Structures are given as structure tokens and as C-alpha cells.
């Protein structure tokens, strides 16, 4: 048993729903109790889908358990087939049905439905949502795709885009357009937008583009083995990765890698002097492994940040993440416990967090700027506007998104110059974070009392300078530390304490602070 407060991933049957909802002409029958339909609203609300997910739940009750839950499953499957007339059906169990051990696959087989029925094995007590999606897609491809003669023109399949995927809709559009520029046509994009009939035609493509390893790798590996279709290994998020992806496709197809980059603005934006202040900014990355690994490359090579921490919640992709972390010289964090992530962020004292919805909340609590790079996400990250992460437009989108929450360059200089600025002090909070600005406290008792009342009513948004126990901050040094702009104060404090500990200094003075600053000067 493991106590969990918030989860990064849902159960595996939600992954199966993501595949079913992504497709058309497919229906999923889930053996599940009343209440599991909650997952419908992820699709209708967060993704704002205008139709019900193509999923039927058997809705068994306690009173059914002694009796014929298998019969209940069969009647639900039959009426779903009669009503929706799908080209193919998926059948599986949610966590509770896994325990009562009816066998949806076996039961469906005895029904003689007039369409392919694919049985899913979703181990709810050991695996999670991404596994469920990957496994469901693999099961579908295995059941439906057949070896075929290659198309005359060079075509590929796009693999891994699903419902509830972070920017999957626009990534598919961007990569389809990029491939078209190279002369490659998309044969089938799946699961997103595909029908079961489309899946039967997947074998005729020359190769596969694996957009999202989390949800498409199983199928990509199967098709490589079964149909001899190579698949791309580089995920085209970031300018460097996109160019590498283009070279990879050129290598597979023999087409030219010389692709028109009109519309790509990110390299110039990043090179312009306005961006100089971004150099070496400390960034912490967390999310699914694919988005974190690609984001780390962008951060380090294309924007000039320093990666001070990276991790992922999906253990399936731990190995590539560990390799990437080693390249950036940081300790990899593989965890699905958000309290552990919070502790790692606090310890790394970053100036920017790139993460999921959970990290947005952690960032808000710590008063650190943040941008979202990965699922799980809330409704605002299924935007109405075109906002891919992949390809050249994706690079433009990413630059804007990541820079937006940061204090701007001139503002930062002025803050350092006028350290005790009365309007833009630490209690006022970081740029673009919610909350009313609080005026700086003057040292009169009445104002101090008022400020204390305000501070008590407002949640703390800024890391407080608190003694760490081992070394003591002398009052002068502590005052000096508070003059350092809040977005670098955490790291200044930590460096000074480490410096003091290394030198055996017990009391930190103003001199110690500046000696440490000189020591760690970058």
C-alpha cells in the first residue's frame, strides 16, 4: 500500500480510453463499476470534446457481485455493438473488474460479434495510464495491421498521438507539414484520427515516425519486427532536434535534408541581445521523459540556461532520462511522488521550473516562475490557438512560453541596481504571478503591525531566509542577503552556506557573503 495525495498518471484503463477516444469507428467496452465514468469528463471538459468518448461501462453493483457479472458484461457489449456498429471493438477491465476475474476477451469471443474484438490486458495494480495507452495501441496494431506492399510514393505513419495528449493535435499538424516539405506523405496517423480500417493499411508505409515514445513505442517496435518498417528515434521538439529528425528521415528515405526554415524565429530571438540575461539561468525540469529530455536540450543548447535538475514520473522511460541527465551533469529524479519533486526543486533553488500542472502549483507556492511542458495539464493547456511543441513553429511557441514568466531583462537590472526598491521587493512576488502586490514594510511599529496582518492573511509566495541550523547568519549578513533580488536569493543563500561550511566558518558575515559570491562567480 502506498499513500498517494496526487498522481501524475491515471490507471491503465484511462490510457485505453485515450486511444479509443482518439480514434473513430472504434468502441471500447470496459467492465467497470458505477463511478468509473468520471474519466469521461477528462475528455469532454479538459479536452473540450464535443461528443461522448466511445466507451461503454458495464456499471456493475454490489448486488451483482454474487450473481452474473459476466452476463452483465455480455449484454453491455452486445448493446454497445448494436447501437454504435463499430468497425472494431476493444474490451477490457478496470481495476475492480480485474479483481472479480470475469474474462472480457473470452466472453466477447463467445458472442460472435461481426467485427474484430481486441481484448486488453490492463494490470491496474502495477501499471499506469501511459502503459495502458501504449499497450492498447499495440494490441490494436497487432490485431489489425497486415504486411502489405509499400506505397509507390514515400509515405510514413505517425505513431503515438492520442486523446488528452499535451499538444498532440498541433504537433501532428506541424510534423505533417514538415514531412510534406520533404516530400513525404502521411499514410496513417494513429491512434489520433484513425479508424480501425485505417490501421489495416499501416503496413504499406515506408517507415514510421514515433512522435511519442510513451504511447507509441510498443507499436513502433512491433511494426519494425513484423513489417520491416524502421521508426524515427529523434523526437522533433526544439530546433536542434527537429533538424536531427529531418536528417534521420532523409537517411531513411534518401530524400534531401535541405528543408526550408521560413517562419523559424526562435534562433534569432534567442541570439538577440535582449536574451543575453537568460544566460545561465537555473532551470529545473520535470514531466514525462520525452518532453523533459527534449526540453533539457533546448534549455541548455538553444536558450543558454543551466539545467540544475531533471526528472520524470514515468518509470518506463527512466533509462533515456538517466542518460540525458548524465549529459547535463545532474542527478536524475525518477519519482511519481509530487512531495519528492517539491523537495528536489526546493533543494535545487532554480530560477525557472518547467514541468506539469503539479509543478505549476509547487512553483506558485515557492514563488518561482514556471511554464508547462508536459501532461498532466489542466484545461488551459488545451488551447484554442495553434500551439505545437514540435517542429519549427513549436520552437517559436516554446521560446515565448518559457520566457514569458521570467522577470524581464531591464527589470532584472533595475532590481539589482535599486536593491531596496519599495515597489518591487521580495514580498511583492514574482512577475506574472497572481496576488496583489504588497508594499514594502517601513520600520515603524504601526506599519510593521499592518504588514504582519497582511502577511498573515496572504499565503507566503517567496522562500523565506531561515537559518539552516549548521551555520548562523549574522544580522548584517542576513540584511544584506535580503537585498539580493528574490529570484536568485535562494541560490545565493545556499552557496554562501556551502562556502562557509567548507571553510569552517560558523557565523556568516557580510564579508563571507561576498567572498562566497566571488568564489562561485559565473
Amino acid at each position: 500500500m502506498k499513500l498517494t495525495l496526487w498522481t501524475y498518471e491515471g490507471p491503465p484503463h484511462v490510457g485505453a480510453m485515450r486511444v479509443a477516444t482518439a480514434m473513430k469507428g472504434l468502441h471500447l467496452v470496459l467492465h467497470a463499476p458505477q463511478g468509473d465514468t468520471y474519466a469521461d469528463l477528462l475528455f469532454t471538459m479538459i479536452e473540450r470534446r464535443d461528443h461522448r468518448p466511445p466507451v461503454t461501462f458495464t456499471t456493475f453493483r454490489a448486488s451483482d457481485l454474487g450473481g452474473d457479472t459476466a452476463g452483465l458484461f455480455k449484454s453491455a457489449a452486445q448493446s454497445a455493438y448494436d447501437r454504435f456498429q463499430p468497425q472494431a471493438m476493444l474490451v477490457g477491465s478496470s481495476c475492480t473488474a480485474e479483481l472479480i476475474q470475469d474474462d472480457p476477451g473470452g466472453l466477447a469471443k463467445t458472442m460472435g460479434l461481426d467485427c474484430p474484438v481486441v481484448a486488453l490486458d490492463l494490470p491496474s495494480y502495477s501499471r499506469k495510464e501511459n502503459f495502458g495507452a501504449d499497450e492498447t495501441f499495440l494490441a490494436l496494431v497487432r490485431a489489425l495491421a497486415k504486411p502489405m506492399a509499400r506505397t509507390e510514393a514515400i509515405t510514413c505513419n505517425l505513431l503515438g498521438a492520442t486523446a488528452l495528449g499535451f499538444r498532440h493535435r498541433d504537433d501532428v499538424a506541424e510534423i505533417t507539414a514538415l514531412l510534406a516539405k520533404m516530400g513525404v506523405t502521411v499514410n496513417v496517423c494513429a491512434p489520433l484520427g484513425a479508424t480501425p480500417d485505417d490501421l489495416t493499411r499501416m503496413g504499406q508505409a515506408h517507415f514510421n515516425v514515433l512522435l511519442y515514445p510513451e504511447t507509441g513505442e510498443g507499436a513502433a517496435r512491433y511494426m519494425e519486427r513484423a513489417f520491416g518498417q524502421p521508426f524515427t528515434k529523434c523526437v522533433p521538439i526544439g530546433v536542434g532536434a527537429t533538424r536531427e529528425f529531418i536528417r534521420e528521415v532523409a537517411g531513411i528515405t534518401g530524400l534531401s535534408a535541405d528543408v526550408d526554415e521560413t517562419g523559424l524565429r526562435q534562433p534569432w530571438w534567442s541570439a538577440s541581445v535582449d536574451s543575453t540575461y537568460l544566460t545561465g539561468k537555473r532551470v529545473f525540469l520535470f514531466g514525462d521523459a520525452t518532453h523533459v529530455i527534449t526540453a533539457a536540450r533546448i534549455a541548455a543548447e538553444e536558450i543558454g540556461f543551466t539545467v540544475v535538475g531533471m526528472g520524470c514520473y514515468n518509470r518506463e522511460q527512466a533509462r533515456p532520462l538517466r542518460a540525458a541527465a548524465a549529459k547535463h551533469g545532474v542527478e536524475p529524479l525518477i519519482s511519481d511522488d509530487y512531495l519528492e519533486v517539491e523537495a528536489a526543486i526546493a533543494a535545487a533553488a532554480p530560477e525557472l521550473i518547467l514541468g506539469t500542472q503539479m509543478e505549476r502549483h509547487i512553483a506558485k507556492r515557492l514563488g518561482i516562475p514556471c511554464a508547462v511542458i508536459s501532461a498532466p495539464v489542466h484545461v488551459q493547456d488545451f488551447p484554442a490557438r495553434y500551439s505545437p511543441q514540435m517542429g519549427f513553429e513549436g520552437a517559436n511557441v516554446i521560446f515565448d512560453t518559457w520566457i514569458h514568466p521570467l522577470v524581464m531583462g531591464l527589470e532584472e537590472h533595475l532590481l539589482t541596481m535599486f536593491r531596496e526598491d519599495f515597489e518591487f521587493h521580495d514580498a511583492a512576488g514574482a512577475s506574472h504571478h497572481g496576488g496583489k502586490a504588497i508594499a514594502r514594510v517601513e520600520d515603524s511599529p504601526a506599519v510593521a503591525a499592518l504588514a504582519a496582518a497582511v502577511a498573515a492573511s496572504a499565503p507566503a509566495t517567496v522562500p523565506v531566509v531561515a537559518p539552516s541550523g549548521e551555520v548562523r547568519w549574522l544580522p548584517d549578513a542576513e540584511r544584506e542577503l535580503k537585498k539580493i533580488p528574490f529570484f536568485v536569493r535562494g541560490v545565493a543563500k545556499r552557496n554562501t552556506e556551502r562556502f562557509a561550511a567548507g571553510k569552517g566558518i560558523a557565523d556568516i558575515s557580510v564579508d563571507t557573503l561576498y567572498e562566497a559570491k566571488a568564489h562561485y562567480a559565473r
Partner: protein
Amino acid sequence: MSLDLPLSPGCSAAPVLRERGQHEVFCGLTGIIWLHRKMQDAFFLVVGSRTCAHLLQSAAGVMIFAEPRFGTAILEEKDLAGLADANAELDREVGRLLARRPDIRQLFLVGSCPSEVIKLDLARAAERMNVQHAPHVRVYNYSGSGIETTFTQGEDACLAAMVPALPATDAAELLVVGALPDVVEDQCLALLNAMGVGPVRMLPARRSGDMPAVGPNSRYILTQPFLGDTAAALDRRGAKRIAAPFPFGEEGTTLWLQAIADVYGVTADRFDAATAAPRARARKAVAAHAATLSGKSLFLFPDSQMEIPLARFLARECGMRPLEVGTPYLHRALMEPELALLPEGPMLSEGQDVDKQLDRHGAQAPDLTVCGLGLANPLESQGFTTKWAIELVFTPVHFYEQAGDLAGLFSRPLRRKALLTAGAKP
């Protein structure tokens, strides 16, 4: 509206369509979302699967706190192998939790579908932990599983589990039962106070130290229609229920207060003095929305058991025409005063076969549809106007001062539709 009983028999004898099929509803675990805000020293520990944790998180939306006061002890494969192990695991997780949160005074072990199916005995676990952690922490157990409870029934199961542990008393106190937003609770207490009714106790109380006592002289009244098991548990403690419609709208609130006034011998003058001003305010506030709602047809999918009282309010005070009133569960005894008031006409349905119900809905093409979030956008995209039902549980809607807000929840989607239609290109 007048307090006269309707001339027609209402829906008391109306037939009820009972259906069985796919239910598009939440399970009882969802009640934790509002119960943990109401009971400020309580922690709700679901013993279940990742699905349970994911449900709570999806339903709680952005309510991420530094340390939320609910969580899920997720069953893993090794827990399913042997049950003795599961008990030891649970003891360890609870011990760890209580050590980290010394402010917790009430711990609810909440059963789920998986824990019920493997027959993990949480009642005994709660007893065992009560001995271990007494007197600082009181441990309760109830089931919020989908195989046993629908949405708001989770609150019922929770409160019913607390009743046997309430202290005994012979005092003639009034218990107001049902978790209400603090602001509404205060208004309720002020009204009862103005009528001279007291002492009044709330179940649940905001903190464990304020829990009411109960005994043979206690009278109790429900503020929510879904509290059948809690009522039965209070009956078993000897308390007597005051039957009344539920305090939605001006009429519902007045009849609810009147039922108490009758029992406590409040004079008509005193009753009028206490209620005349807020009644007038409520009528005025509702009238502002009735203009939009009057004459419009209404279809309610089952969700919270609040459907019948809401249909009664919308029909009688806002002039709407209910076509079908669906409820997940119809408790005849509790609903009798409501059914008598609900004008004849609508089909009453209990349970659900969502596909068939959608067919009926489509054929009737109502002006306003009250439904869950899984259906709302799909119906909107087909041109229907919907009001998502969960908001009715998460928003203050009881008593006089909220009557206008309650009507507003239903008029807003219609007004919005009109605004956007007017703004759309022909």
C-alpha cells in the same frame, strides 16, 4: 408562491420508471471533496486503487493544497496476494500519516470498490486503530464505493458512520443534518434563533470538539435529500425526524422552517417576524431570473438526488415545465413532501440506462438540460442548452439568501445562449 397545498395531488402517486444500464454518475468518494473542507480536523483516507486517486484528483480540479486532507492508500499487487499483509500495510500508512499530521483529530477510512470486492474489513481496522490512536484521534469507516454509493450518498454514508459514536444526551436539542457551506449554516442558525428555536446543533460540525449529542428527546431535520441512511441511524438513536420539503427557494425554505416552527410551537407572529423580510428578498431575487426561465422545458439526468426538490423549485417558483426528473435513488419517505408539491406531468425515473435516457431526451428536445460533465459538452454541441449538475452541490444554494443565486444557476446558460446566438453571424 403561496403556502397553500396544491390542488392537484402532485407526483405522490406518479409511476416511477426504474432503469438499469450504464450509469453516468460519480461514485460516493466524490463527497470527500466538500466534506474535508467542512470538517476541518478530519482526514479522509481512501483505501482503493489508482483509479480512486485519479477520480478524486479529477473531481477536485485545481484544489491542490500544500497538504490536502485526503489521500488514497493505493492497493498494490502484493496487497492483493494476502489480506493479513494489507492490514499491516494499512496500519503502517496510517501511523505514518498521523505522525506527520498531528492536527488530525478524525480519520475516515473510506472503502472503495476494490477494497469492498476483496473484502478488506475496514470496520475492524477502524476499531483497531481507535484503540491505538485514542484519545487523540477518532477513526471511522464508511464506504464510498461506486458499487454501493452514488455521488452524494458518500456524504450520507459518512454521516451515518458518525452517528453511532455521537455522545448520548437527554436534552431536547434540534439537530440540523447535512454539510452546508459555512455562510449558509450561519444564515440557517440566525433564522432559527430569530424564531426562538434552540439550542441547535449541526451534523457534521466544523470541528470534532463541536460534535452534537443525540438521544430520545432529540429532533432532527435534514437539509439535503440524500441522507436516508443518516436519518435511519439517528432514528436508531431515538431521535425523531421533522418531515419537511428541502430548503431550496423561498417556498422550500419557508415550509422547512414552518415544519420546525410547528414542532417547537412558534407563534405565527413570531414566524412572520423572523421570515417576512428574507422571504420578500428571496421572491424578488428569484423573480429576476423567472422571466428567463418561465415556460421553458426542463430535463434532469440523475446525479445527486437533489433533482426532485430542484424540479419542484424550478416548476413552482420559476415557472418551468419539467419533462423528466431523473434521480439515482428515490427515498419515498424522505421525498414525500417534495413529491406532493411537484406539479403533475413529468416522468419520474430512478436509476439509469444512459443511452436510452439520451434517446428520450433527444425526442423531447428540452429547453434546458441538467446533467453531468460527461454529457454537458456533447449535448451542447448538438444544440441543447445544459446546466452541469455538480455545481449545484459545490455552490451555496440553500435558504432564502441563495434563492436568487439558485435560480441564476439555471438562467445563466439560457441567457448565455441568447447572447452568443445574437452575436453569431447569420
